[in-house]
């Protein structure tokens, strides 16, 4: 699993990356009440807006940690946004993206680097 400074995570299987927000981010947001996931076919560049996540008190953009074409958004979050709080780094994934530049993944932080980054916040 790789991480960004904007608290997104990425797991790569083959040429498809599964993307979500970290447990730290989910806790900071508080109770998630709404998630807008991207539709299949959307092409995103690294750092562009990918999804929207809302808690009662805040609405936040989720940025694409990698470039590529969305192959699937997690439709289940529409009915069960609380999954983002319960299972942020597994069942609460946001989208699957077919990588257009796999090298981007290598440049992201690993778990240790992300933990170290969190300790500086």
């Amino acid at each position, binding site marked *: 699993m790789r991480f960004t400074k904007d608290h997104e995570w990425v797991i790569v299987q083959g040429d498809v990356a599964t993307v979500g927000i970290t447990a730290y981010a989910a806790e900071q947001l*508080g*109770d998630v*009440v*709404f998630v807008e996931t991207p539709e299949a076919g959307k092409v995103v560049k690294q750092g562009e807006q990918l999804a929207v996540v*809302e808690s*009662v008190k805040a609405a936040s953009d989720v940025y694409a940690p990698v470039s590529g074409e969305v192959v699937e958004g997690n439709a289940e979050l529409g009915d069960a*946004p*609380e999954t983002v709080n319960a299972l942020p780094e597994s069942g609460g994934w946001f989208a699957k993206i077919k990588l257009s530049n796999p090298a981007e993944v290598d440049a992201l932080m690993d778990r240790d680097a992300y933990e170290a980054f969190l300790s500086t916040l």
Partner: protein
Amino acid sequence: MSMNNVGRPTRPETANDAATGHETLTGGRGLLQDEALIFELDGWNKTGVDLPEAAAPSDDLAGLLRSGPIGLPGLSEPEAVRHYVRLSQKNHAIDLALYPLGSCTMKHNPRLNEKMARLPGFSDIHPLQPQSTVQGALQLMDRLAHWLKTLTGMPAVALTPKAGAHGEMCGMLAIRAAHEANGQGHRKTVLAPTSAHGTNPATAAFVGYTVVEIAQTEDGRVDMADLESKLGDHVAAIMVTNPNTCGLFERDVVEIARLTHAAGAYFYCDGANFNAIVGRVRPGDLGVDAMHINLHKTFSTPHGGGGPGAGPVVLSEALAPFAPTPWLVHGHDGFALVEHAGEEGAETAFGRMSAFHGQMGMYVRAYAYMLSHGADGLRQVAEDAVLNANYIKARLKDVMSPAFPDGPCMHEALFDDSWLEGTGVTTLDFAKAMIDEGFHPMTMYFPLVVHGAMLIEPTETESKQELDRFIEALRLLAGAAKTGDTERFKGAPFHAPLRRLDETLAARKPRLRWKPVAAAPLAAE
């Protein structure tokens, strides 16, 4: 003597077991009545009005008539009165106690203003009846405009915006129109401090501008170096609230205006906090180009549970030609309205803010308020509002932590939550405990630049006795928080009509209306 020992006891019976009788059998609680929704009162065939019978509709409307039931309950008059009176008793109100919501200016609403607004000559006139038949109404608008211009030192005012945010939009549209008329349409950036009201960036974005934030100094003012570095040929305007949302006067405001104008941009001032300076400082003397005035704050038109408001915008000479229609002029036969952009007198108007002439009902109330206070009274309003806020700040500074301890504040006192550190009590908990003590909480978590912000605006219509009562309550609460009495805070409020509400549930499973097919009662997850 003849002994008569029949009758009721006249003292409370001390033998009552305090533990029983706290939960009522029905859920009712004395004067606090539970009240169902109007849809649950079985009034499907009831009505509370008596109207003459009408004939069946004409054949012209065949095929256009509503079929099937609408789904609206009715109530007889006594039931209706009871329903709404019961509901009313679940509301806090300025008429009940101090309502110290910072940046909202919850002051006393004089009932004379209500009486005046109900004179048929104001309340029962149509916006489009012949202008010759509404000269008194137009004259009132003209006088209100004169007072607003004089109090702000500005040459023009657009009366029509319907609330503060609508006024912001009006001012920003005038700025945009002026830039376009002057070949400056390429300017697309608006600068606003991080402490701005949310309406400022929302308005700027709505009229097509990109917002860039200006940093704030340690002492809660605009960072002049940051402002200077961000001004340039791409900047259309700055939006600054003054006094600002930290309750402080922008000391460098004249310099802010000078730099802004030198960069070819306009100075939009958010006038939400005009109450602090009305009658004492004129925004026109500070270099402002446009400023909305919330009549429902400074000029005491009632907030009504969230409106209606009114947000006239005063404009500088540079922006006045672009003001929206309708526009009041002195015509040959008295007052007249220029109603359409492009007409004589409104050649460069940017458009129209709403269908008619704005919030006349609010103009009447505000004008009655101004007449009552006069020039001397309005100056006293500002002075007492500032005095009350500073008094609160002075008397709480040893138990709570003022966000900006040095120097005076204006009409509101801002505290942060550093004094709660280690107590386990948050700003929210503290606010909810205030409810139990009989006060409305202050504005919380705003401005965003101060951690756990508590913004207290008492206004000038509080007596010293009421202020002392409030201060004493806060001091007792602060003491309780610091001595580990956290239960008092965590579960609060205990004495309100309802306990804390589950906002997460409301947002996750939105239930926004009553539905005929009864859904299962909501339950917390």
